[in-house]
């Protein structure tokens, strides 16, 4: 693989480089068992419930756990890491964001994900690669890629882009979660005051791949988002918002883009936080005492 690498790789490019010694391919699915139905040759299955979260706290994994994962899948300082998955790369994007936040540089997403690989009729493999025991780099958390509820309030006050990437029904507060996702609930429905609705799938073209940069910029402008201002994306649990983080930060090169991984399942359950229902963005009240100093 050339020294220029990422943030996207096409199925054809990946197929061509599958035997590169520094390549590490990881499949990260919403449904991890889909991997067993066939996957890209040599790809390791990364279970986002197990591998990409702390097993006890609601949090990202610690550096030691992440290092153990990187070692198991064979990541070294020289690796080119490609992530892909089902559902248009929702969870692969979450993995990308997480790995970037912990310092991995040479990362790429397979454009179109698992779906694009299958549609291109590229071969599927059922052999499960053995665990490796590589010496990976030491994960070091860069907190500037992650937002807390407090950061969200500060961003809205400063006039930044708060981007709600959920469905229109979730944004309006008609539903808390889409059917089939009852485990991702919250106590209240609606959106964060000041949030612009920019559903994640706007970034996806009809063929399942990412829209080109010009089209993405047009879509952002169409929703009133300012490419020159800081941004925070959120959804329900932080994976769709990682997808939009990837679009804004990695595909469009916007600076100061953060993923609020607590997202609606946190905001919509915290006592006393303001919520807007309906299609309008709304505005934060004069103060949010639990998140702002008096």
């Amino acid at each position: 693989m050339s020294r220029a690498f990422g943030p996207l790789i096409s199925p054809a490019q990946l197929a061509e480089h599958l035997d590169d010694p520094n390549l590490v391919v990881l499949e990260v699915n919403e449904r991890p068992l889909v991997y067993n139905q066939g996957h890209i040759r040599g790809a390791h299955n990364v279970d986002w419930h197990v591998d990409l979260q702390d097993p006890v706290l609601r949090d990202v994994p610690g550096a030691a756990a992440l290092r153990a994962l990187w070692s198991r899948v064979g990541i070294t300082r020289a690796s080119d890491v490609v992530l892909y998955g089902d559902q248009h790369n929702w969870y692969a994007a979450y993995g990308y964001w997480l790995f970037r936040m912990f310092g991995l540089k040479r990362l790429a997403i397979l454009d179109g994900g698992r779906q694009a690989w299958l549609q291109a009729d590229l071969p599927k493999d059922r052999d499960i690669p053995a665990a490796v025991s590589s010496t990976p780099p030491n994960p070091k958390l860069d907190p500037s890629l992650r937002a807390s509820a407090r950061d969200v309030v500060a961003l809205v006050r400063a006039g930044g882009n708060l981007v709600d990437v959920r469905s229109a029904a979730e944004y309006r507060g008609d539903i808390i979660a889409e059917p089939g996702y009852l485990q991702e609930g919250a106590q209240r429905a609606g959106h964060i005051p000041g949030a612009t609705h920019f559903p994640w799938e706007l970034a996806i073209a009809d063929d399942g791949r990412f829209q080109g940069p010009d089209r993405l910029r047009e879509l952002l402008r169409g929703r009133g988002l300012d490419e020159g201002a800081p941004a925070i994306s959120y959804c329900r649990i932080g994976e769709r918002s990682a997808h939009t983080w990837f679009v804004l930060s990695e595909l469009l090169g916007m600076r100061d883009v953060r993923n609020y991984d607590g997202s609606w399942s946190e905001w919509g359950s915290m006592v006393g936080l303001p919520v807007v229902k309906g299609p309008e963005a709304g505005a934060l009240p004069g103060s949010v005492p639990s998140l702002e100093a008096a």
Partner: protein
Amino acid sequence: MIPEPPSPDGAIPAIREELARVRAAMQRIEAALTLLENGPEPERPARARTRPDRYYLVLLGVYERGRQGVDSEQFGRLGAEHGYDRRGLGGYFVGARASLRRDGDRIHLTAEGLALIDEYLEAAQA
């Protein structure tokens, strides 16, 4: 004899690796202790599949095409790949527990359809 201390450059990664191994061992011990304290979990039988494989494979085919679903043409082809006549595909849309729904010209999985896919994947795993 006291061994020569390694250079700091080499020692830090080695110590980190050792620490990761110790942590992993602690997690295994903790899990084993929990098991001893609480007794083994009752074995869960894999959910029984109630339909032929091809029924699930059509649903899986829709899932593999992503959140945008499929159009009628693609759905017909998907059915044919698994031996269904186009007219035999209507059953997917019928009843309160239908596994697929139509949104305009697109066909999407329902929550029931997603649950059936999980059922199939779990049974395939067992």
